[in-house]
């Protein structure tokens, strides 16, 4: 299933490295990403589009991301509007 993860996190050096490392370790490719910091530079919001094969794996990944010390919140939505885009 294609997923979009949206993470709100502390805007500090290395936080993205930690996050993408969690995906790398699970052999998950990032299909697209969008990252921006809040105007006060305190927080960053990152959106990733990824593909996760199994529901159980998705649930686990979600929780592993959520427990990172610098991650404040995670939103996760199944990217169903790309259903017809031909990618898989």
């Amino acid at each position, binding site marked *: 299933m294609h997923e979009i993860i949206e993470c709100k996190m*502390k805007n500090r050096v*290395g936080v993205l*490295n930690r996050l993408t490392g969690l995906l790398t*370790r699970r052999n998950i490719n990032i299909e697209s990403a969008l990252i921006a910091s809040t105007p006060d530079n305190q927080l960053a919001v990152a959106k990733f589009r990824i593909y996760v094969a199994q529901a159980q794996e998705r649930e*686990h990944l979600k929780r*592993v991301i*959520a*427990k990172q*010390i*610098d991650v404040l919140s995670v939103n996760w939505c199944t990217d169903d509007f790309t259903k017809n885009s031909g990618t898989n």
Partner: protein
Amino acid sequence: MLAEHNKKDQLKEDDLATGSDVLLETLGQQGVELVFGYPGGAVLPLYDAVYRQSFDNILVRHEQGAVHAAEGYAKATGKIGVVFVTSGPGATNAITGIADAMLDSIPLVVFTGQVGCAAIGKDAFQEVDILSITAPVTKQNYQVHDVKNLPKVIEEAFAVAVSGRSGPVVIDLPKNVASDSTSDKDDGKTDALYSIQQEEKLDEAMLSSIHEALLQAKKPLVLAGGGVIAADAVPELREFVHEFNFPVVSTLVSLGVLPANDSLFLGMGGMHGTYQANMAFYECDFLLNIGSRFDDRLATNAAEFAPNARIAHIDIDESELGKVITTEFPVRADARKALDWLTSNAKTRTRQEHKEWLQQLTDWRQQHPQNYETNEKQIKPQAVIEEVGRLTAGDATIVTDVGQHQMWAAQYYPFKRPRQIITSGGLGTMGFGLPAAIGAKLAVPEKEVVLFVGDGGIQMTVEELDVIREYKLNIKIIILNNKALGMVRQWQDLFYEKRRSQTIFSGQPNFIKLAHAYGIKSVKLSPKSWRKTLADVFAKNESALVEADIPELEQVYPMIAPGQPNQVMLGVD
């Protein structure tokens, strides 16, 4: 004792405090009494402060030893282990220990030296990107760029290491930060940092469903993992299971959660667990897992694990819930709070006897007890461990390395208290034992510390014998020598048609003389008089290295072949 070990030179009044002084001061405020470490160029300022302040630093002989010693210290006490290493090779030598602590959820704060801020990224001498290297094996890591942030970062690191599920934290300390003066230390403008998340409320609805289901269960079973030890919830667990009459299986790292002789204790489960524990997994109709992560050495075949049971899982780390085993009743909670809740609700109910189920478990135990063939002409490793159990009244802190001896120690030592077994569970790190024993002894000196180690593993961190000599630690080191990398040889014999590739040593160092070279008394056991020799060793209040030549082809049984379900055990008669 240790304070006198270093020469004292008081910090002169007119010396400006440096980042390193602030660091040590902050450690003091955190209650740190000693650190394990090894100096080098990037930590010269830090070690200068250690010298000036007479801070207790246990000088190991290899940085891997520093981290394992800190782990032993932390496992024996529940306190945070602290490590100092230099940049580059000092930091990379620490990685194995950090990864070990990550997998076994051991709280550590590891300070790595770093080249000065201006040199970072320029391939400076002894520069490595330790933040990237340690990211996957730490709970969190930091690099400090401004001395004024140092106390806050350290406070945060200590809070992170023990909050929720414990784990290792790295603080990378550029040399200039360690030596910068701190006159402008507190300008009140330190960066806002992490605040520990508020504990969530107990999911009482789910606990109450567990409670109901448990009351209905005919064959209930409790799996008590390392989380019960980490949460200091052993009294609560014991009260709970006795209140309800629930049999208990432990994991490797939670041995001691119930005393070995407790009638409700079935022993360790998993690959080399007891017959009754593994059969109980298969037969139970309700499994309550508290603080175990269903590791593959325990739930050897996740798909067929506990096939007849409804499963409840209580864990402080939500990401463990449903990770490998589908769980009907998941609860994210501190083990102690959850157990307290379950027990106080239990008191209002009638107690279940579970007579038939407990009888079945007893029958299994009697039909297939943990046993081995005795042979008076040989020294059996299992017999050595049982004898040590008697000599120490089952109360020693048992440290192991990794391999067959580790499993025999787990099977045959009569554990009775939490924090009694100190072993590398998740990473299975050979070389862990000797330094971990040092940390455990320094942490709780009044307890006898016994290390069981293989002839392979001792050679991985043997240099730490010098620390035992230097600090005159009383540690009994027992080498169970099968002249092989026994556990790997066992797998080759069972699954690779006895092709013993690279697992038999053609020659070995003389361990007796080796101990002698390190100034440690040593003795080799002989098949005739080994019990007497062992008794003599334990009668003395000093360290000794004891070598026992054990049968070279001895196997660890029972064994579940990898991928087989728990009820399919080899070597059960």
